[in-house]
């Protein structure tokens, strides 16, 4: 009895059979195409709803050496340095002021105090250009001594603040492209804080004293969950003395610069910093921050349609197995593939792969077109590292694929469409909505994004949260508690676990 055979392993045959099953039901194919379409259209709709306009051209946002948008705004008292050298100072005081809400309009109220990440110290910077590479050793408002470089890097030194009675000595040395930061409590005993390698640092750099203060951030829990954040102007003032320079630094006067200061319409600086020199004592006041910037459109804002697409995917993936139960077709399936575990895994792989491809197409279109629309509408889209955008797009496709596998497994366990669809939505979609829709306190929202399959959405976060930048890092703001791949791993773990459970049940049950 001869039949045409092809050389394929049993599993590949099952996989092909499941693909044939999928593509021969027009409703499923159309629904999946619809999922892609709705993902793209909703994303573009939300992108086209965002408009930004500036008086004239919007100011260019500086970009750091790592490619990220940065805020590079501080008061810098500097002079040129050629080649190797070092700067050593004593910081004897750090004070500041924060603006309070106006109680009577027009009269400005301020209170004294420093914000936690107010910073002042010594810096070596490539040039006066905003976003250029730098390294700095500094005292901070509430986080002790730090060494930071290139906006995103931060190393902790000793804790504690500075005062007249307990000053801090800071030193930054340059040897080629390698910079080393030191601190001391007495000017004799030095300990290293950290090192930085600044690739491409030119021979001629700027060296000097700086001060900066990010705004005073207040996060208020909302009446119905969620939170709102407000940032008010703050300034930091540091007093330096015992300044000594080594190396071929230019002699003569220090040059004060209010780097990146905002100008009022009349040309005067808005919230200016300042510099006073009295004998060997230098007083520097700075406003602003030297840190990555998170104000702007994130590329994942173009993926708001994924949630709607996900619901369609869940329905199709559930139906892919539950209709077999409803019609008794599952028996035919198990006759063709009596090794049930392999058969179900083939089915899961088929629907997962279909969804992945659909998701990849949809996410690519949504991000590419959405970004173009955002930019055309005058919005600033935060730049990301070269591999971040592919990660967001491919990750979104994996997210959808894993969700499809999870839904299929739930469908196998329940054998009924409605119960399975509801369960899958409750597992993936509902936690995401609860966590991001400002209905829960931030803590609860973060736990949902850690523990439920919705953790997978972390793969879409393109702008990381930085420990050295105070922000309202909540899921509703697009900041998830787990790292992107860790979050996706949680979702994939759920999918694998549920599929394992479904295989166990399928093996145990009579068909």
């Amino acid at each position, binding site marked *: 009895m001869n039949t045409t055979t092809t050389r394929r392993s049993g599993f590949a045959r099952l996989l092909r059979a499941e693909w044939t099953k999928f593509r*021969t039901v027009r409703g499923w194919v159309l629904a999946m195409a619809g999922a892609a379409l709705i993902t793209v259209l909703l994303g573009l709709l939300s992108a086209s709803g965002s408009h930004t306009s500036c008086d004239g051209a919007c100011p260019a946002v500086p970009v750091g050496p790592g490619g990220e948008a940065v805020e590079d705004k501080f008061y810098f008292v500097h002079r040129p340095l050629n080649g190797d050298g070092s700067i050593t100072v004593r910081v004897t005081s750090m004070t500041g002021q924060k603006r309070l809400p106006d109680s009577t309009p027009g009269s400005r109220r301020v209170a004294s105090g420093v914000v936690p990440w107010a910073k002042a110290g010594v810096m070596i910077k490539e040039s006066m250009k905003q976003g250029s590479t730098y390294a700095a050793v500094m005292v901070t408002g509430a986080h002790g001594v730090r060494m930071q470089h290139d906006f995103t890097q931060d190393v902790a030194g000793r804790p504690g603040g500075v005062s007249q009675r307990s000053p801090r000595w800071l030193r930054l040395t340059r040897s080629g492209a390698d910079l080393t930061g030191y601190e001391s409590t007495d000017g004799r005993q030095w300990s290293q804080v950290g090192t930085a390698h600044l690739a491409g640092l030119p021979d001629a750099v700027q060296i000097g004293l700086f001060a900066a203060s990010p705004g005073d951030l207040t996060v208020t829990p909302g009446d119905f969950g969620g939170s709102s954040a407000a940032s008010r102007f703050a300034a930091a003032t540091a007093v330096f003395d015992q300044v000594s320079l080594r190396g071929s630094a230019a002699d003569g006067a220090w040059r004060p610069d209010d780097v990146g200061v905002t100008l009022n319409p009349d040309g005067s600086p808005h919230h200016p910093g300042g510099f006073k020199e009295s004998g060997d004592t230098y007083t520097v006041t700075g406003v602003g921050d030297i840190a990555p910037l998170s104000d702007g459109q994130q590329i994942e804002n173009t993926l708001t349609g994924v949630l709607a697409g996900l619901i369609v995917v869940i329905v199709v993936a559930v139906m892919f197995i539950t209709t*077999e139960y409803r019609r008794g077709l599952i*028996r035919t399936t198990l006759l*063709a593939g009596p090794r049930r575990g392999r058969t179900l895994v083939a089915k899961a792989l088929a629907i997962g792969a279909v969804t992945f491809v659909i998701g990849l197409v949809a996410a690519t279109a949504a991000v590419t077109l959405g970004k173009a629309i955002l930019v055309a509408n005058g919005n600033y889209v935060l730049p990301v590292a070269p591999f971040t955008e592919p990660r967001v797009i491919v990750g979104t496709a994996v997210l959808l694929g894993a969700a499809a596998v999870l839904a299929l497994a739930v469908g196998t366990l329940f054998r009924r469409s409605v119960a399975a669809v509801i369960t899958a939505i409750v597992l993936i979609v509902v936690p995401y909505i609860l966590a991001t829709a400002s209905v829960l306190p931030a803590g609860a929202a973060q736990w949902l994004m850690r523990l439920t399959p919705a953790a997978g959405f972390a793969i879409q976060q393109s702008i990381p949260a930085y420990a050295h930048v105070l922000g309202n890092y909540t899921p509703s703001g697009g900041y998830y508690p787990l790292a992107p791949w860790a979050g996706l791993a949680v979702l994939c773990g759920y999918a694998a676990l549920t599929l394992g459970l479904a295989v166990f049940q399928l093996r145990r049950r009579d068909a």
Partner: protein
Amino acid sequence: MRATIEVAGLCKRFGQTMALDGMSFTVEPGQVTGFVGPNGAGKSTTMRVILGLDAADEGTALVGGRPYPGLRDPLRHVGALLDAAALQPSRTGRNHLLWLAHSQGLGARRVDEVIERVGLGSAAGRRAGGFSLGMRQRLGIAAALLGDPPVLLLDEPSNGLDPEGIVWMRGFLRGLAAQGRAVLVSSHLMSELEDTADHLVVVGRGRVVADTSVAGLIAAASTGRVALRTTAPSQAMAALAHAGAVVAATGRDTLTVTGLEGEHVVAVLNRSAVPFSEVSAHRATLEEAYMELTRDAVEFRAAGQEAAR
């Protein structure tokens, strides 16, 4: 692979009910084996156990000497039609066969072959949801034939077929057996199998009550019964009783004689000068034989249960 089905000592309990209670039989190649018994006798459950869909509590079921789940590309070894309605309604008949073919490493050409073979023709391109029961049965047969298997299991294949379809099915099954395949066909109506099956496995209450050839079953049920028509029934009864027969009056001038062959009955009546107009061997129908067997099985079971108490 040897084209056989071997079932030995299958037991399966659904809650309080023993669905299978020591079911044992063998299906040989080259003939159609009828698997017959009243509804609920365990035919479908046995078939599902043979096909690895249900697990038996005890016993073994082997196809060609191997358990079904151990078969590589199982549809090339065993073809089965369990439930012709088990179709995705929005998928065409042809595509239904296509995914099954792909699962066994077969191509579209084989699909078109079996479509032709069962006479589905261009209807195969329509959505299966719109198929009549007869078309579904043909599609189910096509699916069973897809892998050109040496063993076939068909659960009530004539269900819902029109008389023409029943005749077609009968010829089809006989043709498959003639090719040397083992064909097991279940039915709850003996009449359906009368002209189809060579061999019968009669089941009742989860066990085999008869495992015999069709001819043997009829012979056993007909043995030693002679119908007699006479104008002198009382004379005839006396003469035949004297010769050792058991005689029962079945009408005003008809008798049934048990215990004597037909020619002996004639000889006795001639010797005693009893007039008679007709002597015939009483031939039981398969239906009668089957009714008798399954009734016995039911009674036996009831008695057994009482004894066990």
